[in-house]
């Protein structure tokens, strides 16, 4: 990615941005988020298939914001997260330089939000293929099998909240799970409390999840919690024909309605 490095240097040298949020290689060979504040260090920037974390999560983090105006290396999920964050008024689009990455891994020229919107609109926004198989398999299970599956998976949860912390859309400074008057979700990491937590998380992301899969990838004990939000992403599209993160003007599906929303179960 020579042109990515060059572009980063140019942005930093001209003081157009104070930090470039991208990826670098860690000591064990995994790619990880990097914050380049100095063009001399820009050579560390990489982009390849190992670069999976959703960097948009950092746009709302206090100490990253303090660094100043940012440029961010953005694959499709990151671009969609940025759209969501703008539409939910968490960040200001004009204050951000988006170093878009095409699905082939090339640097895209994104002059403004409209260009980014165009790129997003032209892309496949459904759940990425690698997750579809498992989603389909789960959907085929009987209710008893599903309940057993999720109980087994969620019993492993240690409530480290990596799923929440890694999610760009979980930017609340105080999460509902931490509400204690009354104690809404049990603090202890037992199966029941874990299930309530993951239901809460999925519901709060319904219509907002942009299918990056970061929650599941972050889970240290390997709970496929991304399937919960991705399933709802599928359903949001089935019912309401929208995908999250396609426009900076969009209100979230769950905070709007159409009088003729169709369902078949309310008597």
């Amino acid at each position, binding site marked *: 990615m020579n042109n990515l490095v060059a572009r980063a240097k140019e942005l930093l040298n001209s003081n157009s941005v104070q930090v470039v949020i991208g990826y670098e290689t*860690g000591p064990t060979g995994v790619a990880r*988020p990097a914050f380049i504040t100095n063009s001399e260090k820009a050579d560390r920037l990489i982009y390849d298939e190992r670069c999976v974390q959703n960097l948009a999560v950092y746009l709302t983090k206090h100490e990253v914001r303090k660094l100043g105006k940012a440029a961010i290396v953005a694959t499709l999920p990151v671009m969609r997260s940025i759209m969501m964050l703008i539409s939910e008024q968490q960040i200001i689009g004009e204050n951000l330089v988006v170093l878009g990455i095409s699905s082939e891994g090339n640097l895209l020229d994104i002059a403004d939000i409209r260009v980014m919107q165009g790129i997003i609109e032209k892309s496949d926004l459904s759940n990425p293929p690698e997750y579809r198989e498992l989603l389909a398999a789960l959907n085929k299970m009987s209710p008893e099998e599903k309940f057993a599956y999720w109980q087994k998976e969620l019993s492993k949860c240690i409530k480290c909240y990596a799923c929440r912390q*890694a999610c760009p859309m979980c930017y609340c400074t105080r999460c509902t799970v931490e509400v204690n008057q009354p104690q809404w979700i049990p*603090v202890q990491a037992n199966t029941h409390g874990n299930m309530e937590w993951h239901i809460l998380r999925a519901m709060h992301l319904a219509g907002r999840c942009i299918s990056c899969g970061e929650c599941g990838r972050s889970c*240290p004990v*390997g709970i496929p919690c991304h399937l919960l939000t991705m399933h709802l992403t599928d359903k949001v599209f089935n019912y309401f024909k929208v995908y999250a993160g396609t426009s900076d003007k969009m209100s979230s599906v769950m905070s709007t309605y159409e009088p003729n929303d169709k369902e078949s179960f309310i008597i």
Partner: protein
Amino acid sequence: METTRKLIRKQSLEKLYKLLSETRKIYAPVIAADKQVEYKYNPAFSDITFDHIRSTLSAKNVVFPKVENLFTFTNSKTESTINDIDLNKIPEVILWGAHPCDNAAFDILRSIFCWDITDEFFSKRLEKLVVIGLSCHQSDDYCFCTSVGLAPESSKGSDILLSRLQNGDYHAQILTEKGNSILNMAGELFEPVSAEKELITEVKGKFSHEQVTEKLKTAFENPFWVENSLRCIGCGACAYVCPTCACFDIQDETKGKNGKRYRSWDSCGFGLFTLHTSGHNPREVQSQRWRQRIMHKFSYMPERNESLGCVGCGRCSSGCPVDMNIAEQLEALQKI
């Protein structure tokens, strides 16, 4: 106690396992369906792994469970009764096949739970624990036990330490009285040591923990912390997978008149950990929390608990969603 060295054949291990499981619970690592290595109580012997580098969670759950009742109570407005937990009911457990890093952690946990006054919940569990360790014949880039005063074949914390031999049999070091009682119980399974070579992996040294501890004394205000924690997302994964992290929360839960007070794992990485009710937070931003984590393990604990809060297992780094690599950071800290 003087260490006894014995040989135990591959086939005899299963016999030993069966024999021990007749009277005790066994906590051993297995490879789960999703390829994660997890500790389970009383798994089938055939499911136990002898080849894992590290389990996802440490073995600390056996002495410091993720959730533990402190007492139960029945409560009305004016009448409350407290029902103690019967700690004598804590069963004897054998920790089977845990690596030296995990086993060395028990002493460190003891230095936290039993300094000043003794936490009986922890100490009773530890008392009832027998550790049959397994030295490491494999390691990876995340391992750094040799940098924190341990080694792939450290016997610290083990009652018996097994080491794989070239031919698949094991050498067994009987290290304590607890270990000795197992030897006495299953003497026929143990044979004289062979000349076969023990398979021990090599873990490269990355930093000197003494130097890190020294450096940290003056590093509190260093810009290092902010620079190196920007990518930390503030989850509790590192603390929860850590074999020596012992911070906990205490909470009540009730159903009608009956309730319980329990403790559960907590993490200094969470913003809420130190938040006062008034809204004031002594550690407001993530860099301060990351600094606390390193400082606590490598500066405060050596001074306060006379133990290093790290065994070099590398779990916090391998489990971190954003590759906050602790060994890398300590190496860098040593040079600041």
